[in-house]
């Protein structure tokens, strides 16, 4: 187990290094730092302004290796964009935003609360509702109820997320006036009122795909031998579904959930920006619209980091829970 753990974490670390290299290629090699500077200070800025901006944001260094070192440059050989990128990302020193020079770390900290207060209920409600509906459908498999719900799921899957938000805001926010259309507050009662609509819209827009997936898992499980055994010893169909099938199906369901964990932190981009929730999703949207490459880079990195961590955790818990998983 120890050796497996070390190997798994080691591979995760190498993957992180790979992701960082991908980000380096994308954000420093493909985009010219000159481009970033031009977008930040404007097309018509004088060369001095440019150079100063690049110097202040650390974009003035060479890309891979500081060859000027041998020629008497005071800076070290590794004082380059590549090494600096790795050093800063790995030590979580994200520096300043390219757009407004604010500290990225501070903005991350500010955005975390609102983001989590949206995504955690969204995640929890979506999961519980999805599993319950799928169980219900799987219980009535091969009947008209099953068909009807599956068709309904297909219909909901075919609607763009954008439309759910627009129609939700219009119907519930504007016509029925049940909840405010957008906004956010830290006070619990108000936050609940503000978050109700985005959570509802998010759950509805995501439920179709979830129910279909979970139903397939449940139906697959209910064809297994142990289910026949349970029936043979006299379990009712409800008990079979709830006690036997649900418990065994939880493992594949959980592994599917892990994939969505980074989204808990990076926030739901569309939901947050439409409903005016000042979370990490809004931060990302602002970064896109403001050409803020350093913030965007940080968000992509954090998303990937969380994903890798989540995968390592699933793999380890798999290995712990299921003795059939070979530790190779």
């Amino acid at each position, binding site marked *: 187990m120890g050796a497996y753990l070390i190997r798994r974490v080691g591979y995760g670390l190498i*993957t992180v290094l790979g992701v960082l290299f991908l980000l380096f290629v994308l954000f420093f090699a*493909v985009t010219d730092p000159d481009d970033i500077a031009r977008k930040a200070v404007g097309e018509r800025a004088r060369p001095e302004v440019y150079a100063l901006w690049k110097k202040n944001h650390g974009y003035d260094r060479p890309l891979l290796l500081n060859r000027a070192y041998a020629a008497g440059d005071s800076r070290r050989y590794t004082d380059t964009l590549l090494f600096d990128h790795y050093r800063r990302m790995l030590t979580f020193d994200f520096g300043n935003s390219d757009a407004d020079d604010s500290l990225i770390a501070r903005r991350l900290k500010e955005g975390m609360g609102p983001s989590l207060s949206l995504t955690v209920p969204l995640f929890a409600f979506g999961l519980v509702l999805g599993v319950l509906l799928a169980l219900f459908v799987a219980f009535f498999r091969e009947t008209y109820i099953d068909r009807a719900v599956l068709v309904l799921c297909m219909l909901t899957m075919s609607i*763009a997320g954008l439309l759910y938000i627009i129609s939700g805001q219009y119907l519930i926010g504007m016509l029925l006036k049940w909840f405010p259309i957008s906004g956010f507050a830290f006070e619990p009662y108000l936050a609940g009122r503000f978050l109700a609509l985005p959570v509802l819209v998010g759950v509805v827009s995501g439920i179709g795909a979830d129910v279909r997936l979970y139903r397939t898992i449940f139906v697959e499980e209910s064809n297994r031998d142990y289910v026949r055994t349970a029936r043979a010893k006299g379990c009712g169909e409800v008990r079979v579904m709830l006690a036997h099938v649900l418990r065994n199906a939880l493992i594949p369901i959980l592994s599917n959930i892990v994939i969505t964990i980074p989204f808990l932190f990076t926030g739901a981009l569309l939901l947050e920006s439409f409903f005016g929730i000042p979370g990490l999703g809004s931060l990302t949207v602002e970064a896109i*619209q403001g050409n803020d490459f350093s913030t965007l880079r940080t968000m992509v990195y954090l998303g990937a980091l969380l994903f890798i961590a989540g995968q390592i955790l699933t793999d380890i818990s798999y290995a712990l829970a299921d003795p059939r998983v070979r530790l190779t």
Partner: protein
Amino acid sequence: MGFLSNTLVVLLLVGGVWLARLVARDRYWRENATQLWRRRPLALITLALFLLIGVLDSVGWVGGGASGEDDVAALRSRTLIDRLFQPERFTEASYSAPLARLSFYGGQPLKHPGKHLLGTDILGRDVVYRAFKGVRVALLIGGFTSLIVIPIALLFGVFAGYFGKRIDDAVFFLMTVLASVPSLLLLIALVMVMGRGTLQVCIALGITGWVHFCRIARGETLKLREAEFVDAARALGVSDLTIIRRHVLPNIAHLIIITFALSFTGLVLAETILSYLGIGLDGSWGQMIDQARNELSRTPIIWWNLAGASVALFVLILAVNMIADALRDIIDPRTRREGR
């Protein structure tokens, strides 16, 4: 532009005929195709209509415009759809309701009174025309991207699975790295970095979706490598490349088709998000929806812009989803065994 899309249409038609002949000749594919037709006739017809509109919107030539236009417009190539709707007969106009005779803009008479089936948008452009123009963009996003991505993913995935060892390690690492970045963020980062434009967005979508195909191709090839018929072929002295061409590729074709159908909808829906963020493709339904989203708060409410784009989007996605679903039932042996 006109020349490029014309050649593309010819190439696509030739490719389509070639594929149809291949399907008709092989018994397995012929039976699957007839079964698909029997199960989802409506969805297939809908998709065919969309394809027709897309093709009509890709065949264009210069000249033959309305009289009294300026030189720039006269030199632009116009597609069949353009010629049908003639949007260049521009009169100053604004919103008009479906089948209306007047526009909002000073109660002006419309150019085709009572004939704008879905009304016009803020600039007096026919909504049906704009929705039709979006068909080509959507098909480009979904189809063209896949056409680029599938061969590359197959190459990497099959070679990695077949030859194993170093090649497999390298490809697997690349896949892990790309799969570790949440796909929407990766997509956004790629488009931001490469800039806007049809090709750039297609490449970004391709890089994001590539991993999925590659993983499936690799996994299936790993299984096939151990198959007895591959062993037999190897024992007979067939070269590796021939084995891949004759024995591996035909046996993963069905999975690739299913994955293509499933990823098509994902690609088109992802573009709507990009459009909202302002980095989408020009003329796409996503952009139409994005432009129309604030019009709901006007009085009288302007719903037809949003409805035109979103119904078109919904119908296309639904048709492809239905087809993908039926395809999976028909050709994937794993779901078939489950007994429907």
